[in-house]
Structures are given as structure tokens and as C-alpha cells.
């Protein structure tokens, strides 16, 4: 997030797109609720009539996968109505003239034909956001999990740049991270293109620094993403180390994924449960869980905080860091003789400019948000206040693209996927907490009542749902949250492996899977 969580209470206009915040980030949503109670206007764009939509002043029910079109239409209106922040554009951005010309073509009327949202509402949204003193954008995976995830994000940046809604209290472009340390995993360099602290591997300077620190040459080329890796299993890749991820349930196209992992000569999985993925491993190593180990995590607002152990490990479980060190030492690798997490974190801080001012003691109270470039620095709750990291903000002349697959006679219904409040990811954790079943005991497919009739299904009965990749059976639940022609399910339950169906395509740049769009067919059982 460019802005701190506390800023969520401060905007005049809030634009939420592709985020089911009341369910996925409930505590963050309380900030928005306070802003709305205070009089802020809330615009919500989502294919489903989610909880946030019920609170909104303007709801834009766009067709799944049509976000770029909606955002181009909004940019058009902001330009047409002259709602730009000229001073901001002049001093902080480049490429506006080209962009101005580019968007002249993409009228809200055109956007209506793609998104299904009335042009009038697109105009209203643009005018509200464009006229706001403090306009803030919030989004999550509903924006990124598309083949055009990059264009979607660029489109949001365009809106913020043209209206100067960046670098001030109550503004910004704010993606919410889904897992408690997904930000920290990226910060720590678990990325094929970046060393720790987002230092590009393709920069000779960075390569030299890490070659010196690690005592060996490291490739100058970017590595491959997980998505590519799964495609190369058995062909070029033969051994894999997976830490705490249930790849099989969480990744799209499960059949392909399982086949990939099975074709490895050697698979080692570190986890706290024998997940579907761990069951395929040659070696499974039991890790300590939350509450059993000390460590550091970084939240969605870049706040670096301490995790603390309070109970002894289950059985012989060991901390992840210890397990990795042990394997490394057996392979004769240097620099893995750690005896606690503290020196590991401190090494990360030394090598990472965004953490340079931090160390194990300084993050005791969780006061710092990175970048913290040196010890006297107070941290950076708000990014881009004076300037952007790369100098000026760049407008992107994006084009709308159809999803990888669109509905057809064979697969006439849009399936979109996500999470629910009471369950988390693949339920390896929430599924094993007492009482959670009382609130949510099984998965069901949310279908509009009129569609239930149309496809001859019955509320509460099972149906067969098929995509180009496979079929599953799932219980039908009638709800007006789903619009006509679009159905929803979460991927949390192992007995309803929705990701057998998804996996139609990937964003070519980020390799994020298009989990939010999948044409399917529904049949009674």
C-alpha cells in the first residue's frame, strides 16, 4: 500500500475495485466504514454484489475481467471534464499529452458496451473521484488475478496520477495483501527478478554486492516464475523445495499442477500439516507453526513487526529457518550457520536498503514502515510524498483485452473465485480451528435465483460445473449477490477443488493466474 492503514479513515472519496474487503480484510474495512460514517463517498466496482457494495453510494456491477475498460472510461471523463490536477501532472509525471490523446477514444459509452455498467454511472464515478480533494483507491486480487493484471494496475495509476491523488494523507493506490507475510516474502528476496529489498538481479551493481556477500557468482538473468517452473517440471526442472504452500489447492489448473509436481525427481516440502501438496513429496519436514516460533513479518502497509513464540513446538517440529540451514549445511553451502532468527533478520537488513535502518531490536514494537534507509530515519508511512522512487510517475497507454477465455455456447457462464470471511486460503488452518465450521461448514456455488431456474438447478442441491479443463460437483446456493450469468465459489475446500477448473491464462508480465475469470457450464446432477 502506498498509504498507511490509518489513512483509510480519511479520504473524501473511496474507490474500491476488485476487493471484497469486508470479508478478506475485515479490520481494514472498519477504517472505511468509519470514513463512510464520517461522510466520505464510497464507489464500489465488483462483478458481485458484495458486502461493500451494500454500503456504497455508487455500485458499478462490471462484467468479470472488464476492469481496464471501466477505468479507461473513467479516465476519459476526468479528462473531458477537466478534473485533472494540472500542477501535479506538470511537476510529478511524464507522458500525459500522449495519454490525453489515447483516452479521447475510450468514451464511457464504449466502456458500457464492454463492462455492462451504464455510461451515466461511469461518469458519476469519474466525476466523484476526479473532484475529490482526497481520493483513495483500494484493490486486491480482483484486479491482479487476470491476464491483464498489469494493465488493470496501470489503469488505476493513471487515474491517481491525473488527479494528483498520490503521496498525501487519505489518497493513494492501495493494494491489500492477502497473506500475513506475503509482503515480507517479497521484501526478503523470494522473487525471481529481485534480490532482497527489491534490488533488481539484472543490475551489475546488485549482483556484485550479493556475489560478495554470498561468496559466489550469481546469474545476471532473471529467474523463472513459479508458473513457468511448474511448466518445466520433469523437463528442465527436477528438484524443488517448497516451504509452507499448498500449491495444489491454491494454484489454478490442479491436474496440470499435480502432474508437474509428480514428474519431479525430488520434492521436499516443509509444512505444518500433511497438505495435498506435501502428500506428493519425497521428504516432508515438519515446521513449527505460528505461536511456536520467533520471527518477523511485514504487513500490507509495509509495517515490519515481530512474531513471538509462546508455546513449545508440536512433536519434533522445527523452525523453517533451521530446516533450510540444515539442508544447506549438508550440501556444503557457506553462510548457513545460524542459531536463531535474529542474526538472519539482521543480515537481511544489512543487505536491503529499504530495511537498512532496522534490526531485530528496533522492530520490537512494530513502529517502522519501510523504507527505513538509515538508523536515524523514522520510517515511511506514506510513499511518494515528495517524489516517486523512479523520479516521475509515468502514464501508461493501456488497451482493453478480453479475458483468456470468454463465454461460449459450450461454457456460457462466468465463474469467478475468491475467499470468504470465515475461511482462509486452503483452510489448512481455519479448517482446523474449533467452531469455524459452525459458521461455514461447506463450500457452495453462489448462483442468481433466475439462473438457477434457467439452468434447471435447485437451491441446496448439487450440480455439475465444468470448464475446458475439468468438472467438479458443488452445492448450489441461491443469492442475489451473484448477477445473472456469473457464479462464485471460493477455493478453500479440498472436497470442492474449484481450481481444477480455473487456469485459462496468465498475465504475460507478472505470471499471475487468471483466477478471477473462467467460463463454465452448469448442469443438474
Amino acid at each position: 500500500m502506498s498509504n498507511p492503514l490509518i489513512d483509510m479513515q480519511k479520504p473524501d472519496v473511496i474507490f474500491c475495485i476488485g476487493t471484497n474487503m469486508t470479508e478478506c480484510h475485515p479490520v481494514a474495512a472498519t477504517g472505511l466504514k468509519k470514513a463512510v460514517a464520517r461522510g466520505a463517498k464510497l464507489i464500489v466496482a465488483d462483478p458481485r454484489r458484495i458486502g461493500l457494495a451494500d454500503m456504497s453510494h455508487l455500485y458499478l456491477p462490471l462484467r468479470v475481467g472488464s476492469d481496464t475498460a471501466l477505468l479507461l472510461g473513467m479516465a476519459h471523463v476526468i479528462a473531458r471534464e477537466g478534473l485533472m490536477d494540472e500542477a501535479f501532472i506538470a511537476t510529478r509525471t511524464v507522458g500525459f499529452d500522449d495519454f490525453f490523446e489515447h483516452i479521447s477514444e475510450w468514451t464511457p459509452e464504449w466502456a458500457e458496451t464492454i463492462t455492462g455498467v451504464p455510461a451515466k454511472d461511469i461518469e458519476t464515478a469519474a466525476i466523484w473521484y476526479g473532484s475529490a480533494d482526497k481520493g483513495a483507491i483500494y484493490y486486491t486480487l480482483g484486479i491482479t488475478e487476470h491476464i491483464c493484471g498489469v494493465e488493470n494496475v496501470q489503469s488505476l495509476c493513471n487515474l491517481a496520477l491525473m488527479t494528483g491523488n498520490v503521496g498525501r494523507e487519505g489518497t493513494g493506490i492501495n493494494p491489500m495483501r492477502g497473506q500475513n507475510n506475503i509482503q515480507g516474502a517479497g521484501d526478503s528476496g523470494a522473487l525471481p527478478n529481485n534480490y532482497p529489498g527489491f534490488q533488481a538481479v539484472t543490475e551489475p551493481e546488485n549482483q556484485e554486492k550479493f556475489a560478495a556477500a554470498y561468496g559466489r557468482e550469481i546469474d545476471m538473468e532473471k529467474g523463472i516464475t513459479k508458473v513457468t517452473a511448474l511448466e518445466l517440471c520433469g523437463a528442465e526442472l527436477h528438484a524443488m523445495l517448497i516451504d509452507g504452500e499448498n500449491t495444489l489447492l491454491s494454484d489454478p489448473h490442479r491436474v496440470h499442477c499435480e502432474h508437474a509436481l509428480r514428474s519431479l525427481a525430488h520434492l521436499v516440502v516443509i509444512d505444518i500439516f500433511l497438505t495435498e501438496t506435501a502428500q506428493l513429496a519425497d521428504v516432508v519436514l515438519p515446521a513449527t507453526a505460528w505461536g511456536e516460533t520467533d520471527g518477523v513479518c511485514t504487513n500490507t502497509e509495509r509495517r515490519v513487526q515481530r512474531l513471538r513464540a509462546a508455546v513449545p513446538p508440536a512433536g519434533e517440529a522445527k523452525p523453517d529457518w533451521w530446516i533450510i540451514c540444515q539442508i544447506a549445511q549438508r550440501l556444503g553451502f557457506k553462510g548457513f550457520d545460524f542459531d536463531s532468527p535474529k542474526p538472519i533478520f539482521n543480515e537481511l537488513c544489512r543487505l536491503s536498503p529499504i530495511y537498512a535502518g532496522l534490526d531485530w531490536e528496533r522492530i520490537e514494537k512494530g513502529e517502522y514502515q519501510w523504507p527505513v534507509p538509515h538508523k536515524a530515519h523514522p520510517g515511511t508511512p506514506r510513499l511518494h510524498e515528495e517524489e516517486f522512487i523512479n523520479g516521475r510517475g509515468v502514464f501508461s497507454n493501456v488497451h482493453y483485452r478480453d479475458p483468456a477465455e470468454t463465454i461460449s455456447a459450450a461454457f456460457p457462464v462466468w465463474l469467478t473465485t475468491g475467499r470468504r470471511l470465515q475461511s482462509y486460503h486452503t483452510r489448512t488452518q481455519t479448517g482446523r480451528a474449533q467452531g469455524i465450521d459452525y459458521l461455514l461448514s461447506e463450500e457452495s456455488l453462489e448462483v442468481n435465483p433466475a439462473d438457477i431456474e434457467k439452468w434447471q438447478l435447485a437451491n441446496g442441491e448439487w450440480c455439475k460445473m465444468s470448464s475446458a479443463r475439468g468438472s467438479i460437483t458443488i452445492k448450489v446456493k441461491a443469492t442475489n449477490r451473484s448477477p445473472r450469468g456469473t457464479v462464485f465459489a471460493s477455493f478453500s475446500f479440498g472436497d470442492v477443488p474449484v481450481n481444477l477448473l480455473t487456469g485459462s491464462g496468465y498475465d504475460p508480465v507478472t505470471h499471475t493466474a487468471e483466477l478471477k475469470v473462467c467460463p463454465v457450464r452448469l448442469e443438474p446432477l
Partner: protein
Amino acid sequence: MKHEMEIDGVEVTFSEGETILEVAQRHQKEIPTLCYDARLEPFGGCRLCIVDLEGARTPVASCTTQATAGMVVKTATETIEAYRKTLLEMVVSENREVDVDALRGYAAGELANLRDRYAVHTPGITGETSGTIKADDNPFILRDYELCISCYRCVRVCAEQEGDHAITVMNRGFDTQITTEFDGLLKDSACTFCGQCIHTCPTGALADKKALRHAEDTTQPRVAAPLPDIEKTRTICPYCGVGCSVDMLTKAGQIVGIHPAMDGPANQGALCVKGQFAYDFVHHPDRLKTPLVRGDDGELCEATWDDALDRAAEGFRKAHATYGRHSIYGIASGRAPSEAAYLMQKFIRAGFGTNYIDNCSRA
């Protein structure tokens, strides 16, 4: 005009908008409160926080009265203290039990603490009690309305902090009850089971049913002071990216409950159902307790750490020798601590000199 006032004979400064209570608290005055929660709009219901204000005909509630320049305030005159004691006697007498188990909730001991401080005897004034335990089969929230003192903190936290408006006040006066819309089960209301109402309740009327499974004796009420064998450890919720601070309550090597951290930098005391109640996966029987290695028969079987680690290393050594550096890949976790992710990338980069590393953020 300068922002200065006098509290108990001492000149103090205040900032615009501060209440007398806030100023007094900053100066270590222990004014008793019951309906006050620093995170909520002041309510002024219990009148326990009254102070003597020069020039006012009657004492004023310090939690609702804004500080103004030149005020002269006395926080604990004899009259005020006597008045507080009488108020407490009335409140205490209405309750079936004041000494509740500390596991009921974060603030559950507030009333008992005040009773001790003012040496109020239980029962002081005898009278009818107010309400009953509400039958509700939900596994998280005990609704023990006999202990309710109508401070409305739960209703206010639900509305103001959570924005859920799941509970309201039914009836007036002595029959006042906290209830859901249509007086039904919480499950059928707008309740999201965030647990905030439990942890603001000053009497334990709304209580943490799940934590109470670990109470010494679930049928008998207990002393209010935190039980000596419960430890609190500050950590971060294991679920989403908001990173809410929580205090883990542990007893004999087990997590028995979660308290929201009122000073948590990301959440200021707020939590959701996952952070509040979904902690016991840690102790689930399905936890992996020993390393597993695939045997010749194709089945995973238990192994010693030494054997398993040797096997793990051997497989990477072989792949490296047979297929080269670019045949090995690492996927780091978005849930394990940063040290794990850092070492995963170091394992790949320092070990094999490639950038064949990713984390699970792409799915």
C-alpha cells in the same frame, strides 16, 4: 487563550478537543470508569467518572466534558468518592456475580476491580438481578445477561468500531437487555463474530466461550484478577495482510485464547473472527510431528531428522550433478516468517547461483 487548566491543584496543559478524563489520565489520575472505552465516542452513561468542577452546580462526567481553559477540577473529593461508592453498590447489587473468570474477556475484571478499590461488599444493596443467560448455540460468544450493567459498550463497539450494528438495546430501565435485531441468534444477525463486544464488556456478561473451555471450573465463577498461570505474549495474527497485533494467552504450553492488542499499530484493538478465534489449528492432532520420507514401497513413513535431512540434501545434490544448477527451484512461503523466505532465496542464490526462486503471491 492558553490551553491551561487546574487538576487537583496542579496547573496542566491540554490540547484542543481533549476531555477532562483524557487530560487527567495523562497526568496519572485514576478516575474510575465503567462505560468508557478509549476507542469509542464518549457516552456518559455510568456517571462513575464524575469530578468536581469549580462553578458547576453538580459534578460533571469527565469522559464527556471537554477541557476548557481556566477550568478548576478536583478528581477525588470526599463527596465524589462517596457518590462513586454508592453508584458501585447499586451496580454490584444488580449482578449475580462480580468475580468472573479472567478468560471471559479482556476487560471482564473491570467491575470487580472497582468493587475492590471502593471496598463495596457483595451484596451491598440486595435487589433483583437483571436478565438471564441467552440460549445461543454459537461456539464463540457466551451471552450471560445477568451480568449486564447496561453500559452499552458492546453495542457501541459493534457499531462504531466494527461498523456491523449487529446488536442493540431492548427494553428500558431495569429490564434493559442487549440483543440482536429480532432477538434471535447471533448467527442470524449481522454479527461477524469479531469478538469485539466480548473484549470491551466490563463485567464478563458477553464472554469468550471458546477460551472458557480452559477455565479452572466452568460452572463456578472465579476471582477476577488475571489467573497467575496464564501468560500473555504479544504477536501478530497469522492470517491476512492487515497484520493485527494480538496477545496470545497461554497456559501449560497451550494457546487458550486471544486478546486484541488495544495498542496494536495496525489494528488499534480491532480483530476479525479469524484472528480472534481461529488460533487452535496450532494444537490440532493433524499437525506433522516427525519428518516423513518416501520409502521403497512408495509410502511416506516416519524418519529421524538426520535421515530426512540427509535424504532432502541428497536429492538436491543428485539433481545438481545430473542436470545442473538450473534444475532446482525454490518456492517460499507467504505465511512463514521473513527469515524463512530470506533463507530460501539464499539457499537458491548462494547455493546454486541462480534466481530460481519465487513465493506464493502469484496464486
